[in-house]
């Protein structure tokens, strides 16, 4: 699964740290999600969706091998 969290974050002009604080996780977690090392839970995905004001499908995309 790939994601465009970095782009969405840039649109809102947020640093990793600021985004992490907004949704109540560590900067490490945001970094791990952006670099595809960690797939977030539904809860966290929905928090991101609320913050970005977009459906989850807009910034998380399934790949052929998923």
């Amino acid at each position: 699964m790939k994601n465009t969290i970095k782009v969405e974050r840039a649109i809102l002009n947020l640093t990793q740290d600021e985004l992490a604080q907004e949704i109540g996780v560590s900067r490490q977690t945001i970094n791990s999600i952006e670099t595809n090392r960690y797939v977030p839970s539904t809860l966290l995905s929905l928090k991101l969706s609320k913050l970005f004001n977009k459906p989850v499908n807009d910034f998380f995309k399934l790949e052929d091998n998923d």
Partner: protein
Amino acid sequence: MKKSKICDAEELRLQWLVNFKLPNYWKKIGWALLSLSFALIILTKFLDGDFSVIISILKKITLLGLLIVVISKEKIEDELMENLRGKAFSFSFIIGVVYVLVQPLINYLVFVILKPQKARFEDLGDFQILWFLLIVYLTAFWFLKRRNA
């Protein structure tokens, strides 16, 4: 009380038990206990006398210190940390079982080669197994955290 309410209360209690962790400041207490007891164990090696009871107590304090470090929260304990903890626990469990199976065999073979007259097959003690499991867990968790930094 309704059956559903009893089930909910049971579920809450179970969740509390499964997710139980000490506050972050306990980590320092754990390290302090661990360092102190470990240093005292080393110290007894240089002193004359029978310290078997004291060493036995100190070993338990060492394990307690390690356990406190293991179950203390990180500064920010979020779902990534839960995930990494799970991975570190499963890794340490598997390595621990392999260690318990293989280490006595290695000990025996080393004795056979170096001191054949003293060669005896002995299983590991509880302290050695628990110490190994906790240390492997902490190392794996530290490595995974570093990888995700």
